[in-house]
């Protein structure tokens, strides 16, 4: 029974967006410039985009969990499981994707410095983001190479259940990576316009690292089961 009245909670002084001498939340400097005149640039914590990306990651996790159980059940359903050797390029692709996570982290530090302090051109904050973009595209190209490799061995989508799952899982993952790369171009656009929010970059980073983790999981799954 709700009968009591609460005092309105104490409002903390509104934190000004970060800038020199004003560290902002959690130590990592707020990336938003100190200029209120830019539209809709107030950053606040927790940013809904961070929650939103967890929502997205939860959904993707469930999707791949469903595919995993489909794979396991299908393997047990019949005796037509033909082991296939994973194309070697997959292992290189893994390194490429993990490297892109590293380059992303480097760029995050650089961007924080750039956005929070005097803007000197030799910081080149966007460079490491472009490296990430390039590595991401290289990953997708490498996956395509893996598919070509399988095709040359006569393994197509419907050849046998192993090949079906191989193409399905790697293609869907690559599609999500491409989605992530679209997000990256959005981040780059914002950065060049000097109105990138910290939460936007963080959101993208969580997603991108998740793509890496998901790929490692899929690789293990394919290696163990296919």
């Amino acid at each position, binding site marked *: 029974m709700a009968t009591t009245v609460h005092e309105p909670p104490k409002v*903390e002084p509104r*934190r000004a967006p970060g800038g020199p001498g004003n560290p902002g939340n959690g130590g990592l400097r707020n990336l938003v410039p100190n200029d209120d005149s830019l539209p809709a640039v107030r950053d606040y914590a927790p940013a809904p985009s961070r929650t939103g990306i967890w*929502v997205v990651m939860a*959904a993707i996790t469930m999707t791949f969990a*469903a595919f995993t159980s*489909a794979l396991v059940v*299908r393997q047990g359903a019949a005796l037509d499981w033909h082991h296939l050797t994973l194309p070697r390029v997959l292992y290189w692709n893994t390194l490429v994707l993990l490297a892109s996570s590293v380059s992303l982290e480097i760029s995050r530090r650089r961007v924080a410095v750039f956005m929070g302090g005097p803007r000197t051109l030799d910081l080149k904050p966007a460079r490491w983001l472009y490296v990430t973009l390039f590595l991401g595209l290289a990953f997708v190209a490498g996956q395509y190479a893996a598919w070509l490799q399988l095709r040359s061995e006569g393994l197509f*989508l419907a050849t046998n*259940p192993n090949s079906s799952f191989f193409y399905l899982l790697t293609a869907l993952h690559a599609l999500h990576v491409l989605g992530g790369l679209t997000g990256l171009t959005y981040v780059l656009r914002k950065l060049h316009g000097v109105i990138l929010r910290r939460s936007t970059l963080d959101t993208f980073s969580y997603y991108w690292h998740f793509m890496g983790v998901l790929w490692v999981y899929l690789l293990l799954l394919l290696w163990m089961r296919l």
Partner: protein
Amino acid sequence: MHDMSAHAAAHHGPPTSFIRKHIFSLDHKVIGKQYYGLGLVAVIIGMVLSWLMRIHLGWTNAAIPGLHLLSKTGAPGDVMTPEFYLQLMTMHATFMVFFVLTVAPFAAFGNFFLPIHTGAEDMPFPHFNMMSFWTTFVAFCVMILSFFVGDGPTLGGWTQYAPLSAVGSVAGPGQGAGVVIWATSLAIFCLGQLFGALNFIPNVLDLRCKGMSLWRLPLPTWAWFITSCMGLTSFSVLMPACILLILDHVAGTSFFVASNLVINDQLQPHSGGSTLLWQHLFWFFGHPEVYIAIVPGMGIVSHVLICNMRKPMLSHRVLVYSMGALAVLSYMVYGHHMFVSGMNPFSSLLFSFPTLLITIPSTIIVLIWIGSLYGAKLRINSASLFALGFISMFITGGVSGFFLAQPSIQILLHATYFVVAHFHFTMAIAALFGIFAGTYFWFPKMWGRMMDETLGKVHFWCTFVGTYAIFMPFHYLGLAGNVRRYSSFPADYMQSFVGVHKFITIAALFTGAAQLIFFYNLIHSRFRGKPAPDNPWQATSLEWSIPSPPPHDNFGGRHVVVYHDPYQYGVESSTGDYVMQDSPEQVKTEHEEA
């Protein structure tokens, strides 16, 4: 806590062009109304399909004038063929479950009221929110398309069990293109739901206004939040299932089709697939889906009842925890749809225990409602009638669940009309009553006009009595062994059932006709209804603190501060026996502890 809602993540000013205002709108209120409109069209389609089915079940050889217009081959001489019956049945269920029960109580009312309940200006990602409606709309159009291709829509039931659904058109009319269209439409639908969850969840977690702790959120908001979490995790499993099904059709894979199947004397090319895999994937989604259909209704009914009882529920938190418990348990019970499916009989026992236990949170919810009625000052109006009716319907639907939760009893009742009774009471009637209650309660806020009370009450009486008359006999038919999904009943022992079916059909047609009263009331009130005041029901939650209809940014630039729990009724205040959630007035309680 910061006043986080003051600037929504994507601040957008009021739209000026017609397209931005009414078609591709970023405003959650418009999106909510668009969803409501979609649900309305879908329920009309679903209802008409059900009338056609019912006429056929009562009078199998009757010619229904104009029926041949709906299908090239399904109704020669306007007499329904068995395959067309199944196609209509499949579409009836598909439209109702997805485009009515997931859209109306959740996406429609949720989109309109959740940001207002949290004190926010809009959803956090208005572009994704707009996309969620239009994606759902595209899914709807794709589903409609199935009536116009080849040999019509799929006939495999909304459950689409493999291999019937996966082998292709050799298995029957509509099983080729019809299935691919069905699965594609649903895959698109899943995406739309994800875009919705993407907005609902961060809004509740991050965009609450000053003073709005989680426990101060009204019950519908909790219900929508819990439902979004369910939708997020369950639709993400339906989509893979649909993808695999589509691949079996168009890519020659064999996920679901076993080896050595012979149809029409032709050996099928598939091999090695698992029949039961589809059922596991589908029901892992399917069971949470039915809770997605009912939980928003529970929130809405609680909200409407509290206002009309002039007292809060016995325990706000218990209701929230119980709805949460339903959501969590809903993932552990899905195997009760598969007791006799051929899965390991031990698994059947395993699934039956959580299924029986899920009765407990459902009972708690009903008991809290009933217990809260004690000592109330009940106001009777269209909204509260439907809310009370919901309780009666949900009790009836829940009680039949006692039977179906037990594998040994399912030996008798599986795939009979008893099951059809159970899910119609809980979903078709109770959830629908939740939609009606929400409509009568919130129409003034959404459209700025009052609905006609007299028509509302007539609608209620016809619907309450009518739906009991339609669906109560289903229980008896089921007990007697009337198998479901039959287009007619040639078996010897079913001959005596036809008379009951005729009765049901007449009740259905009568109740269906009564819905015209509701549609008329909606449309007439929209344009000619009495202008609505801000707070016609003397209610406390935030939506009643703003004009009817609300301005573009909901609170007119005001930074909302909330001082109370959402249901301060039964108090002594300057406004009467209630105090609004954003009123700084401190009140002494008048609510007597009995």
